[in-house]
């Protein structure tokens, strides 16, 4: 516990700050300011801690979080600052999975609730919903003991004609043994999205089993003879891989395939792109042009668009040509997950429901071994493995919700909350890099699943404009991918910078209203029933008058609960709206004045995170 710590406003040009007390707990860092406002930061959320050079007012400490919160403390005594710094470094860098928050988090659920929570999302059920197994596709037991591919789930769906030797042979020809398997099956078109990793083709190698495998996928689609093979990498990268004995499919060796590169960059490019984006958006006193050119230079929106374009290409192949598509990148767990899941989301309205989205993430990301632990840096590890691949996927989904405001059951808050928990390590779902690892960690026994907790507060995540009949089931969402449709996701990257957001939220207002509407409808039913009852009574009054008078009490007693329920509804309309605009205290305009009122001498100004004395 350290007192008299200052929390600086990140975007203030005049070093506005609030003073309060900083506490470190086993799991959180807590700051309580003088007006008792609390800021909780989970240790696992801390991406970086930086101690800046000493200033006259104290020792500055900057904490960057994985959910894009950046806090800037000034600790009066350097020793304290140093202690906090060291503790945070230790606390935020976990060496073993067992030390993660999920293993100590106790939400007061009993064992059966915990088990039920884990059973909430059942992928076998999901494949059944898609329509497999069927005449063409079957469940394979080849990977039951993770013998063929450690990073795949135990249960895999493959074409019926793909025999075990073909599977085994194909897996040996694929990077990390990730052979082609079913990701999504489109019932109406009888076409499939399959996924795998790159072939170990080098410059000339070929593998008959792998060629058979692709042919089997092709033949499992009775309506179209050919299939697409989408390499989601830029052609240059794929070619470079050939030198290392990897590469891409040679069209001459595979019959009836149409090969296509779609050019999504690799995890390293994405990491540095986001880094650049955050540097720009974190600049104080940013001009419009610096922002736009920074946005351009970061390439972030270009990458988001590339992912979306790839998904659109995939979806067209299936919806227009009824052709099956095999998607891969290098290892088939980053770009492949993005494109497969986004494609399925465009094809199938189920994934646009709250539960469906959970299923989608469980299927294409968790079960197929997207390396959440490495990408989100759950354990202290190789910083080169960190990459915002999943964040990018969420951003694509957000862009779709902007274009199709009625097509999604969930709202932006849902996406943000999932993003929060992918990094929080509070629930077991995202721990580790693959299913096998999660089984070894016994996450289902020792930790809790996120999904039941999200469902319990489902109301917060519902899109009030959602129209389930927006498009008939299994009909296509066709996003417009012209560049101007992609916007900077302020609510993600400036989630905690309140001064940047609109002060009144239409979404919240409509959410509350539609919630209120449900309540009002019930009240109307209740009132009508009472009136009916009373009318019935008053008809009967003449006959049963003396019976009535024997029980006058219940009538009087019955009404209050009804009124009680409705009372808050009338002022409810005011409560719905919170207007924050009038308060300049949390606004930057107070600084406009200080810009022209002469600066006080000997003030220490912190610019770009480096302390500089200005006297």
């Amino acid at each position, binding site marked *: 516990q350290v007192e008299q710590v200052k929390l600086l406003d990140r975007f203030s040009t005049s070093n506005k700050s609030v003073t309060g007390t900083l506490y470190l707990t086993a799991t959180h860092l807590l700051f309580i300011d003088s007006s008792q406002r609390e800021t909780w930061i989970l240790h696992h959320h801390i991406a970086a801690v930086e101690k800046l050079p000493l200033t006259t007012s104290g020792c500055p400490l900057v904490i960057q979080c994985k959910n894009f919160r950046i806090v800037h403390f000034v600790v009066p005594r350097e020793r304290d600052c140093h202690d906090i710094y060291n503790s945070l470094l230790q606390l935020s860098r976990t060496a073993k999975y067992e030390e993660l928050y999920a293993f100590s988090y106790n939400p007061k659920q009993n064992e059966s609730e915990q088990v039920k929570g884990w059973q909430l999302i059942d992928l076998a059920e999901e494949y059944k919903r898609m329509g497999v197994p069927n005449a063409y596709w079957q469940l394979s037991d080849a990977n039951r003991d993770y013998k063929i591919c450690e990073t795949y789930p135990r249960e895999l769906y493959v074409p019926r004609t793909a025999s075990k030797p073909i599977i085994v042979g194909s897996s040996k020809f694929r990077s990390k043994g990730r052979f082609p398997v079913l990701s999504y099956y489109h019932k109406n078109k009888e076409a499939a999205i399959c996924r795998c990793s790159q072939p170990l083709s080098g410059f000339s190698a070929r593998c008959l089993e792998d060629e058979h495998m692709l042919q089997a996928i092709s033949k499992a689609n009775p309506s179209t003879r050919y299939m697409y093979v989408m390499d989601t990498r830029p052609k240059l990268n794929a070619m470079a891989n050939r030198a290392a004995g990897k590469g891409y499919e040679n069209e001459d060796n595979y019959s009836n395939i149409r090969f296509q590169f779609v050019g999504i960059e690799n995890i390293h490019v994405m990491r540095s792109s986001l880094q650049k984006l955050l540097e720009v958006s974190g600049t104080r006193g940013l001009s*419009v042009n610096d922002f736009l050119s920074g946005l351009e230079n970061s390439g972030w929106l270009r990458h988001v668009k590339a992912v979306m374009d790839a998904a659109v290409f995939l979806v067209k192949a299936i919806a227009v040509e009824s052709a099956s598509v095999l998607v891969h990148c290098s290892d088939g767990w980053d770009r492949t997950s993005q494109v497969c899941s986004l494609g399925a989301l465009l094809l199938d309205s189920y994934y646009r429901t709250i539960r469906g989205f959970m299923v989608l993430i469980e299927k294409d990301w968790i079960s197929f071994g997207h390396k959440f632990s490495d990408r989100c840096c759950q354990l202290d590890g190789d910083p080169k493995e960190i990459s915002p691949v999943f964040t990018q996927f969420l951003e694509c989904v957000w862009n779709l919700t902007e274009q199709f405001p009625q097509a999604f059951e969930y709202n932006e808050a849902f996406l943000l909350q999932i993003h929060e928990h992918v990094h929080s390590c509070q629930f077991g779902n995202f721990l580790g890099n693959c299913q096998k690892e999660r089984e070894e960690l016994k996450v289902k026994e020792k930790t809790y699943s996120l999904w039941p907790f999200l469902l319990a507060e489902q109301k917060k995540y519902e899109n009030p404009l959602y129209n389930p009949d927006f498009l008939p089931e299994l009909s296509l969402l066709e996003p*417009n991918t012209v*560049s101007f449709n992609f916007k900077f996701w302020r609510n993600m990257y400036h989630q905690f910078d309140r001064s940047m957001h609109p002060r009144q939220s239409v979404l919240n*207002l409509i959410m509350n209203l539609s919630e209120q509407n449900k309540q009002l409808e019930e009240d109307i039913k209740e009132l009508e029933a009472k009136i009916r009852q009373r009318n019935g009574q008053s008809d009967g009054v003449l006959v049963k008058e003396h019976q009535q008078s024997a029980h006058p009490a219940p009538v009087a007693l019955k009404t209050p609960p009804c009124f009680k329920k409705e009372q808050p509804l009338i002022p409810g309309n005011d409560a719905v709206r919170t207007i924050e605009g*009038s308060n300049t205290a949390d606004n*930057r305009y107070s600084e406009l004045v200080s810009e022209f009122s002469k600066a006080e001498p000997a003030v220490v100004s912190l610019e770009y995170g480096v302390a500089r004395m200005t006297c």
Partner: protein
Amino acid sequence: MEFAELIKTPRADNVVLHRPFHAAVEGTLCLTGHHLIFSSRSRDNAEELWLLHSNIDSSEKRFVGSLGTIVIKCKDLRIIQLDIPGMEECLNIASSIEVLSTLDSVTLMYPFFYRPMFELVEDGWRSFLPDKEFELLSSVTDEWRLSCINRDFSVCPSYPPVVIVPKCINDEELRKVALFRHGSRFPVLSYYHRKNGMIMMRSSQPLTGTNGRRCKEDEKLINATLRPGKRGYIIDTRSLNVAQQARAKGGGFEQEVHYPQWRRIHKGIERFNILQESLIKLVEACNDQSHNMDRWLSKLEASNWLTHVKEILTTACLAAQCIDREGASVLVHGTEGTDSTLQVTSLAQIILDPRCRTIRGFESLVVREWLQAGHPFQQRCAQSAYSNSKQKWEAPVFLLFLDCVWQILRQFPCSFEFNEQFLIMLFEHAYASQFGTFLGNNENERAKLKLPQKTMSLWSWVNRTEELSRFQNPIYEANSLVIWPAVAPQSLQLWAGVFLRWNRPSKYLDEAQEEMVRIINHNKELQAKVKVLRRHLAELEADERMREN
């Protein structure tokens, strides 16, 4: 002149109309003196397109064999294409359009010919008279008076006949001040902040010149607005550099020595062709669907449009801040005081005054701070983004103001009585309209053209219940507070409703909007129903109790 002489081919059949995101339609094209009318005869959806010639910003023709094609680019940024069979017909139509869309005589404009099809409830020309405004003001302060010094527009040609000035300044002194200000635009009251009695004035630049001329009456006038011991702020909408250069041409700015109680702040807001070019670049970028992400972002940046929006909003916030937070009086001016000055004073009022966020209040603001204040609409809005003429006086000053209002509206979606459509409607009518409201460059010209007698006012039409319902914001709830918008680049957005309006399908967004309105209306209905039922129940209970007693 007869319009018939200009129209050699008044009608052409089998014309095909192409619009983005619509299937091509075949139909008949008719030309009248003021309209281009296209009507399709297809069985299932007969539709008509009426386009004012004055809405046409530019047109191009080209031929493939005998099939002619005319591409028409409108001031509201829409682009349509007409395929006309027959070379002669096409040439005739193209040349008629060319001439009819560039008539330079105001009195030939459509407002002088337009006969309303609706019943006139209220004459919009008389809806916002200065006397009424002054009545409101005099109920809270007696420090101001209405001066008729400009009754015959002889003192200042771009000012209205009556202006509000400090009581302690007589007309003789005003005349002297007028001589000291560019275009005779002496400081007048723009806004009175009821909360603390602070005021905002606007004027043009003082004519100090290189030798630092001064004018005692000017100093007296603006000092008269200061509270004892208080300082005021002069917001100069030009950068210090530009203001200094203006001295060489006889202009200048208030020197500290002569205005010791005033603090001057310079904020560079761009003007004239810089803005026009910015608009042209922005629209060019928005219209090209083939741009990859990098190109789009760099084009958006190069247009500088959002930079202008940020500059204007920031300056308006600064003015509002001086008044509301600092409790100081403010004088705003640039060079002429007819462009950036008005952007700042009107936006500051939207931030400060809840009345300006109502439909009536906003109309009144447009009338006071733009029309009566002498923003030269006819010059500024002569051409829009597809202009080839590149005249110095063309500039989207008013559109920028509307864009800024939209930015605030987006940040405070419940605090405005009007919706985005209302702003878009004003943008359209400022550039091409059947109403006379935006004709002329100032009240002087409007009086000479006898617009109130000869044309219909936009407000007469808008303020009818039938029209108003389209412009009302369903989630409006009066907010009496000052609303401070965020101006960080991350908080500003491209105004898609104007700039992407014709470039993307809006079906899903429109439907979502409808659904939102449905939820709101449903809520109102349910609330009402609950109230009725509850009353009914209470009555029944009362009856029962009486019976029991």
